[in-house]
């Protein structure tokens, strides 16, 4: 295992992406085989790397202390492994799901390109390579959304790009500041106190990381993309890869680069971002009428838990956040994939049109249900474990308000999934959709694998916690204390867990009430909340995108641009085009008028000139 091997997770998918792109359409089978094999190889190597855990490649690159520096250690190897796992599943799924899509070949290439960039970002141990890979994701992000092929796809792609780009640019600035403060760009050498400029750097880098993860207020492209982009993309990037990377970086920032302490201002800031994201996004999710949009809002909402967890700066909270990251990636991918499966067969994801599909698509329904329960935090699934850890962390900080926010989130999460599951797979069979079959194995398999993992990570939470999470936090908390979160992971009889379970019950009641109120139509189950006084108006405004920072930001940008154009650029042009020429013409006009062709006039000038000159010479000579 030489350090050069570290290039493999980057180069292999990149090369594969090029190959896939260049393979002619006729060789589709070869393409699929190559893709799956490649992804499998990557997963294999990820395991190998995971077992090695400690490897570093540093070659001089740009000078000025900027090396091409890759470092494999427990955290990055964990992320690498997770990325590879998702890649394999998505690849398998894609081979079928994107088979007839007009730009399917391109999509596959993008997938591998994304994997290359993501692996690079996870491995990077220097800011410049980090940024290189991190921002490189923008390209594939843009490309994949446009593949959606809807008229608005392009616009949504630009939106995603702009928002992500904005976050990335913030991160560049943050990195620049941190670099100045720390004096080095090697990530493993950096650990600074978050004060003064460093605090600014932290906030900026946090924006970058949280933006990638899709936290509020940088989330608004995700629901749009849910509609405009291929659903595979949703399962792939916003649900899995971006969460992994974003939270990975956020954890690195908060744990390594900056010494964030519980109760400090920055910790509080993170927690506020987390809590706000949880509540607002879930409220939006609750009222969605489209499965993909609903899921996408949850993808946002769940980020809140992770940020909240990390923001507590308490080991259990951080561990919860990171664990939630991996869990979320699993069940959210599973959910999107099942939504994709439904869409694959029925051609729609609108809740209103769907219903009672459970019988025809039992495996999809099963996968969906497990994942939905996991995301809702139902005992003993993985979501329960990680959420509990976050709740504990939040409670431990002493600011119970954040814990309450998280619980509120939990209520609505479950409520909305009750609504979604109920309307799609259970209840009456909808008449708008013709009879369907279960999807192909290649589609169902990844869903079931993910569902299985959800169960595994919940029931046997010791495995991920000891294998993945605890090494990351080793050495934090009280000095020398051994970190162990497995003890009370599935414990039910403690106040926190009881409250959580109470929340779930409340959610069930809410759904039941709404279901009855809505004339036994599941998709209307959230209407009572939707129609609450005050809420309704807020929702309407939200639908009009009043709260969308992107739209507002665009307005600002347009206004600013117009202002700059009309206020500075055009006046300058006016100055050159009109004022200068006008002044010239004016002077010229006056002088031309003076030259009236009369000789006496000219003679008079001469004589006047003579007198003036004589006077002038007389004056100057003295």
């Amino acid at each position, binding site marked *: 295992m030489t350090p050069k091997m570290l290039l493999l997770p980057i180069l292999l998918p990149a090369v594969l992406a090029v190959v896939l792109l260049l393979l002619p359409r006729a060789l589709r089978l070869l393409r699929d085989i190559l893709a799956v094999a490649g992804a499998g190889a990557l997963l294999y190597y990820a395991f190998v790397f995971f077992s090695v855990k400690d490897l570093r490649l540093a070659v001089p690159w740009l000078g000025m202390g900027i090396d091409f520096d890759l470092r494999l250690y427990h955290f990055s190897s964990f992320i690498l492994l997770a990325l590879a796992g998702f890649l394999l599943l998505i690849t398998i799924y894609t081979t079928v799901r994107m088979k007839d899509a007009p730009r399917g070949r391109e999509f596959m290439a993008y997938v591998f390109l994304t994997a290359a960039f993501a692996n690079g970002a996870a491995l990077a141990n220097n800011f410049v390579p980090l940024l290189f890979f991190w921002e490189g994701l923008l390209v594939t992000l843009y490309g994949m959304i446009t593949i959606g092929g809807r008229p608005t796809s392009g616009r949504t792609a630009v939106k995603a790009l702009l928002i992500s780009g904005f976050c990335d640019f913030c991160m560049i600035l943050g990195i620049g500041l941190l670099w100045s403060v720390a004096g080095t760009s090697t990530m493993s050498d950096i650990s600074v106190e978050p004060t003064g400029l460093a605090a600014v750097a932290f906030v900026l880098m946090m924006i970058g990381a949280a933006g990638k993860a899709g936290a509020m207020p940088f989330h608004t492209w995700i629901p749009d993309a849910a509609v405009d982009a291929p659903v595979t993309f949703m399962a792939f990037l916003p649900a899995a890869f971006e969460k992994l990377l974003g939270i990975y970086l956020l954890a690195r920032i908060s744990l390594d680069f900056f010494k964030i302490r519980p109760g400090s201002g920055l910790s509080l800031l993170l927690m506020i971002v987390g809590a706000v994201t949880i509540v607002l996004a879930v409220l939006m999710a609750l009222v969605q009428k489209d499965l993909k949009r609903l899921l996408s809002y949850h993808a946002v909402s769940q980020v809140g838990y992770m940020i909240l967890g990390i923001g507590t700066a308490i080991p259990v909270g951080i561990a919860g956040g990171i664990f939630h990251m991996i869990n979320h990636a699993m069940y959210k991918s599973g959910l999107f994939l099942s939504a994709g499966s439904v869409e694959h067969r029925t051609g729609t994801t609108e809740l209103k049109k769907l219903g009672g599909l459970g019988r025809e698509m039992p495996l999809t329904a099963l996968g969906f249900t497990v994942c939905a329960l996991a995301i809702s935090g139902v005992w003993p699934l993985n979501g329960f474990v990680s959420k509990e850890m976050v709740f504990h962390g939040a409670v431990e900080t002493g600011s119970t308000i954040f814990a309450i926010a998280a619980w509120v989130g939990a209520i609505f999460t479950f409520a909305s999934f009750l609504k979604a599951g109920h309307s799609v797979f259970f209840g009456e069979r909808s008449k708008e959709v013709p009879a369907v079959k279960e999807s192909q194995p290649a589609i169902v398999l990844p869903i079931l694998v993910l569902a299985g993992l959800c169960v595994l990570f919940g029931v046997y939470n010791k495995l991920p916690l000891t294998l993945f999470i605890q090494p990351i936090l080793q050495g934090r908390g009280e000095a020398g204390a051994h970190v162990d979160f497995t003890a009370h992971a599935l414990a039910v009889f403690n106040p926190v867990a009881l409250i959580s379970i109470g929340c779930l019950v409340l959610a069930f009641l809410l759904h039941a009430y709404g279901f009855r109120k809505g004339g036994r139509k599941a998709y209307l189950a959230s209407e009572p909340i939707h129609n609450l006084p005050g809420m309704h108006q807020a929702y309407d405004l939200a639908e009009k995108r009043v709260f969308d920072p992107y739209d507002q930001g665009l307005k600002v940008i347009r206004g600013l641009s117009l202002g700059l154009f009309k206020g500075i650029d055009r006046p300058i042009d006016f100055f050159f085009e009109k004022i200068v020429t006008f002044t010239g013409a004016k002077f010229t006009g006056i002088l031309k008028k003076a030259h009236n*062709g009369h*000789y006496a006039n000219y003679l008079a000038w001469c004589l006047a000139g003579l007198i003036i000159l004589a006077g002038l010479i007389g004056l100057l000579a003295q």
Partner: protein
Amino acid sequence: MSNTWYLYLFFAAALIGAGVLGLLGKRNLIKLFIAIEVLGKGISLILMGTGLAKASLLTAQALVITYIVIEVSLVATALALIINVYRQTKSLDVRGLSKLKG
């Protein structure tokens, strides 16, 4: 005697003044040229006057003669011009000669 040249200078200046004023005020082309002749007389006089002052009358005479010859050339040219102008415009008014301007 030594200061008589100031007298000539005074009168020469008067002639030049008259000539210049005539040039400024008159409108008839021929009148204008007569004014120039008056100016020329002033110049002849001033040349002689300075010659007198420097007791270089012979040189001064030479200068005046040269000046007169040039004046003749000039008058001939100018009058030829005036006649041509008259043929073109049928007028001797200098105000008519203001087509070129600006």
